């Protein structure tokens, strides 16, 4: 261990690559896991003052894995509230209906449209958050409201599902939300799903009592369990953010192992003599392995010691951008996560030891006689395990690609990614073999010049060195082409598909609001429907379906895919009531799964909004409405999705390119520094520094070109195979879109880093020799 420490201290330059890779890797992982662990479900603030909450019962999980709840009917809610209020220790049982309301200032709806859907509440529920009036009186009649901000007596413009209204402010609250008279709230909201209990005495005892009182009519939540009441929209946002963070952790660890492995392999090759000497003076192979592990351990501990604080400090800085990008909910704050930091530190050590594994085993087999050899000459570019693994990787990847059309759609995308990884790793392993012919080919035009000859012979004899530079470039360019190609191709074809579904040329669409109010829709020429949902129970399973409330219907119309449902349907509406209706028709072009008469939907879902109006005449002006072309309307959704995908892409590519840069720079710095003698000889033979630089730059560019070519080819093959299988499946031609600009940029960054990294040791050597 002492020996390892001295080794590391003395030759820190040789370990710098490992150190930086581990420090950055641990930093990325520590930051990501801190963010991830900080992003926990929380009891919504406006329920935080309520120790016991009763939620309406779940009817099972939906396709996304979230529980689906039904509402209580007004009668059910009233009965339950009465039962709960009578329990000992309960001071009040307060139902919490929520409804859509948005403030309008200067004709423009304000605030976040999604959150506005549940901004309206009954006044009595203000107590659930512990909110009080700081001035004025509670609202008592329709058209009265209490909220934070405006002074009592002032009038504010609002928008509800019915349309614009002007409300009188009766009181100022010290918490967010619009609070109206209880009766008004009940009329505006679509059913009650939550009853809060304020208690005196032990909350847990009350919760237990409530549990037996409620039975199967609901779920009683107390203490930390109340965190489950996090709104689904917030849960989704956190889920999205978690996907990005998980991807960052996975990619960060993968590339860190890769960089450490290649750095260790190179430095082990350069230390052959030293290891031979150790073997000669009596180090057993086991001792050599242990020494290399110990060295790496020292570097990993140092790297972790830098990386952990780096990640811990970076995490809070990343929180605001994540919130802005819609990947963490508003108000998200980073908390200290010692477990995440300790885990990242440990991961750094595991990653480093995994990376040094093969290098240490190879070094242990260095014969003692090597201490007597001058050789920096590479003996063999390829070892047998390298051949075997490389060929296996290519074969397995190719087999997966060939089998692609026979797989299910779900399995296809992960199979494609798996195939790409296998092929890329295989290509990286076989790179030394492929480099020779590629180099002959690309340098053919310059074979007569001195630089051309030197570059050509240098790369041909040092195929392994060139391969270590080309490998990270290969991986990055490969993944870049693959990811950008997949994303662009999908969004291109998806955009075309969805635009085809929108028949009218012009659309009256929501503008800063979650949907159009009845008032905005009234009088617009064209087709529209109220968007709602209903729970349908068939044979014991309950499913939630989208419901469209349209004009000119008398019964239930089903879309084609629901044609198997029974002819009489039990529908449970958002307000909790159940109605049995006959199915009158099945339609192909239904906008939602189930079509119902508009007034029926409105009656059972007072909060329902209209997504858009397909215009067949000029639209009239209304608050929160704008007219768009069909294409632009569809594009909004695509852009929103595309924006998040672009963020994912940008983050992952930046991480990948960053690590490639590190790997390339490190390989070249180490390799060029070790070739100082060779370059001195070149100088003695009459070459100037510019000459040496031309040779190093030429070699570096050649390595990057080789990596780019191989990576690009492999990725292209994967994309073509994926396209073929998808085309076969949907029976429609797909245009393969590859954003060449982005990929060329990736390759150029690699090239720039490579040339600089290869040139710096040469210039430094010159400065030193003067």
């Amino acid at each position, binding site marked *: 261990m002492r020996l390892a420490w*001295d*080794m590391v201290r003395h030759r820190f330059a040789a370990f710098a690559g490992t150190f930086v890779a581990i420090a950055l890797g641990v930093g990325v992982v520590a930051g990501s896991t801190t963010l991830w662990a900080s992003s926990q479900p929380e009891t919504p603030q406006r329920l935080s003052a309520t120790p016991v909450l009763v939620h309406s019962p779940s009817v099972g999980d939906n396709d996304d894995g979230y529980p689906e709840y039904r509402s209580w009917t007004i009668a059910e809610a009233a009965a339950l509230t009465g039962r709960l209020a009578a329990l000992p220790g309960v001071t009040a049982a307060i139902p919490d209906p929520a409804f859509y309301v948005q403030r309008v200032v200067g004709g423009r709806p304000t605030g976040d449209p999604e959150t506005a859907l549940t901004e309206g509440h009954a006044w009595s529920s203000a107590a659930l958050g512990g909110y009080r009036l700081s001035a004025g009186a509670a609202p008592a009649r329709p058209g009265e409201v209490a909220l934070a901000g405006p002074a009592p007596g002032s009038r504010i413009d609002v928008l509800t599902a019915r349309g614009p209204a002007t409300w009188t402010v009766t009181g100022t609250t010290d918490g967010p939300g619009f609070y109206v008279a209880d009766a008004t709230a009940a009329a505006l909201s679509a059913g009650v799903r939550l009853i809060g209990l304020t208690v005196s005495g032990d909350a847990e005892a009350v919760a237990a009592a409530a549990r037996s009182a409620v039975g199967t009519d609901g779920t009683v939540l107390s203490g930390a369990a109340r965190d489950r009441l996090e709104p689904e929209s917030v849960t989704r946002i956190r889920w999205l953010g978690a996907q990005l963070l998980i991807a960052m952790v996975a990619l960060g660890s993968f590339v860190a192992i890769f960089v450490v492995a290649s750095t260790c392999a190179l430095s082990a090759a350069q230390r052959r003599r*030293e290891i031979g*000497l150790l073997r000669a003076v*009596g*180090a*057993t192979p086991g001792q050599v392995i242990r020494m290399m592990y110990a060295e790496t351990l020292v570097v990993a501990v140092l790297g972790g010691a830098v990386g952990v604080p780096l990640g811990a400090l970076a995490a809070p800085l990343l929180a605001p951008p994540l919130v802005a990008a819609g990947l963490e909910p508003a108000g998200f704050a980073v908390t200290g996560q010692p477990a995440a930091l300790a885990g990242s530190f440990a991961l750094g050590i595991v990653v480093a030891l995994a990376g040094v594994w093969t290098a240490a085993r190879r070094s242990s087999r260095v014969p003692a006689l090597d201490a*007597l050899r001058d050789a920096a000459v590479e003996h063999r570019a390829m070892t047998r395990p390298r051949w075997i693994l490389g060929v296996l990787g290519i074969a397995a990847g190719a087999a997966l690609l060939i089998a692609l059309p026979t797989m299910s759609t779900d399995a296809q995308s992960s199979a494609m990614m798996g195939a790409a990884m296998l092929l890329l790793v295989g290509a990286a392993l076989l790179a030394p073999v492929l480099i020779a012919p590629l180099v002959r080919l690309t340098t053919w035009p310059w074979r007569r010049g001195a630089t051309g000859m030197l570059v050509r012979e240098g790369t041909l004899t040092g195929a392994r060195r060139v391969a270590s530079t080309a490998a990270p470039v290969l991986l990055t360019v490969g993944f870049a082409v693959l990811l950008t190609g997949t994303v662009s191709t999908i969004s291109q074809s998806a955009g075309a598909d969805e635009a085809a579904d929108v028949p009218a040329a012009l659309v009256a669409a929501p503008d800063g609001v979650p949907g159009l109010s009845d008032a905005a829709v009234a009088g617009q020429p064209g087709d529209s429907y109220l968007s709602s949902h209903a729970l349908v129970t068939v044979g014991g399973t309950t499913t939630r379906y989208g419901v469209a409330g349209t004009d000119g219907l008398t019964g239930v119309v089903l879309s084609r895919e629901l044609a198997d449902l029974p002819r009489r349907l039990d529908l449970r509406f958002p307000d909790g009531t159940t109605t049995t209706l006959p199915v009158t028709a099945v339609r192909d072009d239904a906008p939602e799964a189930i079509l119902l008469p508009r007034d029926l939907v409105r009656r059972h879902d007072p909060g329902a909004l209209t997504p858009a109006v397909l215009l067949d005449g000029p639209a009239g002006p209304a608050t929160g409405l704008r007219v768009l072309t069909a294409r632009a309307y569809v594009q909004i959704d695509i852009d929103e999705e595309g924006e998040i995908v672009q963020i994912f892409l940008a983050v992952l590519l930046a991480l990948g390119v960053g690590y490639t840069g590190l790997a390339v720079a490190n390989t070249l710095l180490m390799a060029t520094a070790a070739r100082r003698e060779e370059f001195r000889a070149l100088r003695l033979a009459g070459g100037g520094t510019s000459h040496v630089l031309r040779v190093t730059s030429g070699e570096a560019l050649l390595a990057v070109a080789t990596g780019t070519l191989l990576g690009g080819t492999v990725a292209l093959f994967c994309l073509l195979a994926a396209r073929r299988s998808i085309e076969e499946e949907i029976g429609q031609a797909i245009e393969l879109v590859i954003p060449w600009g982005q990929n060329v940029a990736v390759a150029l960054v690699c090239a720039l880093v490579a040339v600089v990294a290869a040139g710096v040791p040469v210039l430094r050597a010159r400065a030193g020799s003067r």
Partner: protein
Amino acid sequence: MTITTIGTAVRLRAVSRIYGTGESAVTALDAVDVDIAPATFTAVMGPSGSGKSTLLHCAAGLDRPTGGEVSIDGVSLTGLSERALTKLRRARVGFVFQAFNLIPALSAEQNVALPLRLAGRRPAAGEVREMLAEVGLADRARHRPSELSGGQQQRVAIARALVTRPAVLFADEPTGALDTTASREVLRLLRTAVDRHAQTVVMVTHDPYAAAHADRVLLLADGRVADVLDHPAGAPEIAVRMARLEER
């Protein structure tokens, strides 16, 4: 020293070393028999390509002969595993090479202590310092190899080779990279080790002046022992024998 020696420190019996196979095979050693007596200083000489380095490598267990048997201190090397061979080298053999003898990261003191530490032994207090004092470098203990002259580095290497009190010390052109003064100092140290501590030393060299310090000179040609010179009178005599050998 408590190691019991059975007549010879190093014994080579019909040792052959052939590199390559078939037509391109090169015979570096051709059934060589050599006995090295304990507490003697043996020089191995010969024209380049005569097999003198191969002889040293095989005798020291760095290289495995293709035929014959090598014993060090009565232990046969034939059939020993890499690990067992390493342990034997560690315990009974010391090495001094022409160049690159020291680990650059370690100080002189640490380099000397290295074989002991690799054997899992903590050097006794003063043991390493004493060794360094013996080669005249007590004041350089904490210096790194890059801070020492070539001659000083070679002396540290000798101290390291002797610290385990090995049965035999092998030196491969130890003065090859040194100037005259430093060479003389290194040879004097080797001679002292033999005379004062009954150390067995085998040295490969091409320099008659260096060989003149030995008790016995083995002259190799074409992988065989061509001539043996006991108690050489001086460098000129060795040079004459060498020249005769090269003329054949």
